[in-house]
């Protein structure tokens, strides 16, 4: 197990106006402890994917960082100030794992409600309606929206006002692949200047957008590292072909895929070239196991 310490530049403290400093935090619900002595510090703008199996404590971590849950032990500092200060809260955007759309308001009214709660300007509502391409939903009530549309409106609220830290709890859950990709692109743009903590169950998504991964297991930080340093013990290449070939005789077989275990993705081009040289007509080549899956086992 690798515990999290100051992953980023140690000279850049959380007291410089940006950043998250989580110091030996134990937190949970009604006395029941979910997080145990969690410590980490983030100062570098980037996307930090928070991974963990169900019940590991991801949502509890987000709620604690957002100041919703008060730690039983330890302290959370945002931009060098305790999280219970309004000035700290004003540095954060928190997207809950629920849609969080208020009943009784249309999409536009809901965004105006959020804008008011966050101190944003009414013109910001029009901006995000266009930015998230949801203007055509603006007169609809949440009950008239699909799950994906509700999520999109929910995401729109974090773009109402610029903040330095974004806590996004499963932002692409329930989104269709196209909208999920567009949402990830928006978040990627954000991460150039902001700190984004992004929880996900989707391991491929984590590898696609994350620069760092923070793995939680049983309420403790299991690993906090650059995503390129996170390697599983196996890398399995799956190949689908148009016609079976003797060149694949040494490969394992699983469904339509011929499998070969490699030391890493860098070996893939050479393997494919070799097979094609032997006349194998390749229809598809893909990674069959995500190395991050090892983190959950």
């Amino acid at each position, binding site marked *: 197990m690798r515990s999290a310490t100051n992953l980023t530049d140690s000279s850049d403290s959380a007291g410089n106006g940006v950043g998250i400093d989580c110091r030996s935090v134990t937190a949970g619900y009604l006395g029941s402890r979910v997080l145990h002595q969690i410590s980490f510090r983030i100062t570098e703008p980037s996307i930090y994917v928070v991974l963990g199996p169900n019940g590991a404590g991801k949502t509890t971590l987000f709620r604690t960082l957002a100041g919703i849950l008060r730690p039983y032990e330890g302290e959370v500092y945002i931009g060098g100030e305790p999280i219970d200060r309004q000035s700290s809260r004003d540095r954060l955007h928190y997207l809950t794992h*629920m849609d969080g759309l208020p009943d009784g308001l249309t999409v536009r009214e809901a965004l105006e409600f959020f804008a008011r*709660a966050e101190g944003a300007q009414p013109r910001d509502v029009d901006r995000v309606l266009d930015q998230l391409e949801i203007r055509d939903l603006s007169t609809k009530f949440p009950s008239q929206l699909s799950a994906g549309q509700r999520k999109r409106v929910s995401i729109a609220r974090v773009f109402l006002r610029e903040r330095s830290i974004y806590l996004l709890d499963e932002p692409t859950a329930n989104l269709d692949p196209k909208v999920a990709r567009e949402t990830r692109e928006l978040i990627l743009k954000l991460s150039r200047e902001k700190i984004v903590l992004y929880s996900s169950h989707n391991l491929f998504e984590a590898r696609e957008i994350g620069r760092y991964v923070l793995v939680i297991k049983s309420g403790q930080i299991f690993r906090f590292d650059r995503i390129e340093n996170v390697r599983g013990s196996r890398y399995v290449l799956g190949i689908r072909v148009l016609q079976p070939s003797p060149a694949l005789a040494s490969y394992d077989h699983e469904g339509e895929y011929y499998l070969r275990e490699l030391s890493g993705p860098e070996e893939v081009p050479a393997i494919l070239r070799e097979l094609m040289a032997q006349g194998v007509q390749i229809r598809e080549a893909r990674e069959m196991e995500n190395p991050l899956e090892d983190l959950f086992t």
Partner: protein
Amino acid sequence: MNSSATEAVSRSLLSVTVRRAWVTGRFFMVYGTAISVLLGVLLAHFSGPSFASSYPLFVPIFGVVGSMGGLTVFTSDRTKGVLEYLIAYGYSPGRLFANVLLTTLVLVSFVVGIGVSVSLGVYFAEGHTATSALVIGMGVYAVPMAFGCAAFASTAGVYWTTLSSPRQGINSPIGLIPFIGILPALATIFAITAITLTGPLSTTTLLLTLGTAIGLVAIVVIVLLASMGRLLRRERLLSPA
């Protein structure tokens, strides 16, 4: 954590919550107002002077039923993660509860205001005059008790909501709280009825009974409000993880 450094966000949610309560709880509001007006008009037209001693006893019931929209919004917001969102942006649990309570009281003022004013209008149009029984009934009992019962229902409903898992239908706070909220008003009606069965109801006895009822409701509401800080913990306002 340095809680002494906590600052409160200053933006009020009352007006938007009242609007949402109207949208989500308009059935309750229309129903409460309609039966208030209907009963008031019927009593004013057909029962004559006895309107003064009967209609005020029912007004708190209409107030409770008509103001359920405030609790509807609170229950929905808890389930859907809106309360969690608001807490993250600096709204304290106490402030969120106060928002529900104030919304409820605003709704009561609509329901009771419309019901009482229309009923009194018909009553006076029928040629009746303002008697002391009417003044006592409306001013001392009906209006204060309507606000008291609605505050009781709202506070009890928030407790119920936060202490239980989200439920639908009759087992949800919205399904049961109207019945609990009208209990003080019903108890008062039973008490007055019991007294009149044993003999004539004097003004002193009427005032004593109504005053006791309002006093008891006020004490219960104050105790519930005083316990709010201990019982209304922020964990209870969160949506299921």
